[in-house]
């Protein structure tokens, strides 16, 4: 999700690939796939092409906002946005309802990750990966008694040794969950309360960061900070003293899912591709490559219990409340922005 640099590199690599592939594309059936950078095992694309004879044109984006502006003007057959973006696309009538008769492998997707708030009828999207936000902390410096809740991020004992997310939705989301409100609240009083909570936490944080957390936790500049479980895996690889937990108050469950836009040209190819990606073999290969949790039940069943019981790889979302982001009205988005500026003034 947050691998911008890599995605840029991959973009350029993909462009080079496109040029070389131009020659014979005209005769064969073509499928346009648009995904996050570094978010697929590229061998799977070759395999899909071999099996079906469909030529895949694969492109990558680095943010949901970027994707939103691109699909206004360009036709793609399969896109893989995140939850709140899917909700926005549905609101703006930009997606096609899926025909699950043509995507039989949908039955392999765990129901825990379907019918979520962003697509309540599960008409438009097939989950691709999922994950949660939790707290990554350093076991050498953080007392066992202090973990378990979001309140670690407000604990004055760790003044100047924690950090907060530098993006308004995730940061205010943490405060909202800590206060027991909905992540998708449109109640301005609740949002104001959440903002005040972050302002109260500012003296405790060493910084309000995004990517820097990936560097400062392993180097022990800070001892605790929120992050996505998929990236926590990487940080713990770098520094084995780090650990991850999901706070008991609940967390944001994020899902990236495959969709077919309204202006898709090759719907049957798109259905084949989505079905292929949900097959056990492909989903397993992709899980190994991407590292984010897979929603595919057979992948989960085939993996060692050591991995599936590890909250890092497969957080047990039955243990605490979870909520997925949905699209917010423009007015509330602007209010988030105003609060965020206020927090950082």
């Amino acid at each position, binding site marked *: 999700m947050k691998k911008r640099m890599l995605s840029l590199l991959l973009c350029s690599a993909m462009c080079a690939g496109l040029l070389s592939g131009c020659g014979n594309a005209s005769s064969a059936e073509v499928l346009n796939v648009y995904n996050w950078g570094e978010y697929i095992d590229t061998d799977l694309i070759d395999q899909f092409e071999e099996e079906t004879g469909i030529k895949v044109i694969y492109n990558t984006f680095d943010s949901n*906002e970027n994707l939103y502006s691109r699909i206004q003007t360009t036709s793609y057959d399969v896109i893989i946005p995140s939850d709140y973006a899917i909700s926005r696309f549905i609101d703006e009538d930009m997606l096609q309802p899926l025909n699950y008769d043509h995507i039989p492998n949908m039955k392999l997707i765990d129901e825990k990750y379907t019918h979520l708030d962003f697509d309540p009828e599960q008409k438009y999207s097939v989950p691709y990966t999922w994950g949660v936000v939790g707290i990554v902390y350093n076991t050498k410096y953080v007392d066992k008694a202090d973990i378990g809740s979001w309140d670690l991020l407000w604990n004055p004992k760790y003044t100047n040794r924690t950090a907060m997310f*530098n993006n*308004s939705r995730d940061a205010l989301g943490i405060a909202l969950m800590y206060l027991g409100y909905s992540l998708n609240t449109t109640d301005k009083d609740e949002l104001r309360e959440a903002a005040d909570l972050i302002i109260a936490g500012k003296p405790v*944080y060493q910084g*309000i960061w995004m990517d820097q957390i990936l560097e400062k936790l392993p*180097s022990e*500049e800070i001892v605790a900070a929120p992050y996505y479980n998929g990236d926590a895996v990487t940080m713990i690889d770098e520094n084995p003293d780090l650990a991850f937990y999901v706070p008991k108050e609940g967390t944001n469950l994020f899902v990236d899912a495959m969709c077919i836009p309204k202006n898709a040209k090759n719907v049957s190819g798109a259905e084949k591709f989505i079905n292929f990606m949900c097959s056990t073999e492909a989903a397993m290969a992709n899980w190994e490559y991407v590292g984010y949790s897979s929603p595919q039940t057979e992948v989960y069943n085939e993996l060692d219990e050591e991995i599936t019981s590890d909250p890092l790889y497969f957080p047990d979302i039955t243990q605490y409340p979870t909520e997925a982001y949905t699209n917010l009205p*423009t007015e509330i988005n602007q209010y988030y*922005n105003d609060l965020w500026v206020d927090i950082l003034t």
Partner: protein
Amino acid sequence: MKKSFAYPYGVWLAVFILAPILMVVVYAFLNADGGFTLHNFSYLPGYLPIFGRSFWLAFLSTVVCLALGYPMAYLMSRLSASKQSLCMMLIMLPMWINFLLRTYAWMSILENNGFINQFFRSIGLISFLQSHFGYSLDYIPLINTQGAIVLGMVYNFLPFMVLPIYTVLIKLDRKLIEAAQDLGAPTYLVFRRVIFPLSIPGVISGITMVFVPSVSTFVISQMLGSGKNLLVGDLIDLQFMGGAYNPHLGSAIALVMIILIFICMWIMNKFDDGSSEEGGLLL
């Protein structure tokens, strides 16, 4: 030289500088539905502390750059030709490395467990402070301070101060200095009454070239500051890249910023009373 040689630059100027500025102006006065509005500007009074902080930090870094850069340029201009080109290369050398990487390197130097603090620890400075002065931290806070932001700006923008001043100083007519000396002026008076006034155009362009990027930076503040306080650059970035996506508000802030910078430059140019056209690179 033929006038037509300037046409490609004219086209460049129109397409990549004038047109974007024009778009900023148009966007600033529109609302999301494309109608005329002044609403975007109503946010600005609330942003006053952010503007104040940006201008203050940019002012500090400009002052430090001038204090360091002028003597450097002056000493350089008095060296032999071969040493001058060596110095020139030393000043340009860091600019061969990407700006982001250079700033990133400062991050690992200044961190609480960074290079400098590890050095302080190894020479026993920190334990000395702790035992004799009741110092409670086990590091000296360097990163995430305003000082770190100013340091980052000075480090990155110092060449832009040195080079224009140096260019003016080497072109200075030696006879004027000799004349002042012949007339009995002591060294400091020669500097104050002859050299410095003649170098003012270089100083003005140096100040401009340091102040403008400093006041609009956002990368340096995010890496070396704590990210807990916005600068104007961050604020504009937030309008375009943040979840709210409000390019109209972003443009309004950018427009006000452009106007404020123009005012600052106009005031600066008042000091340069048009006595010399050399070295005055901008405006």
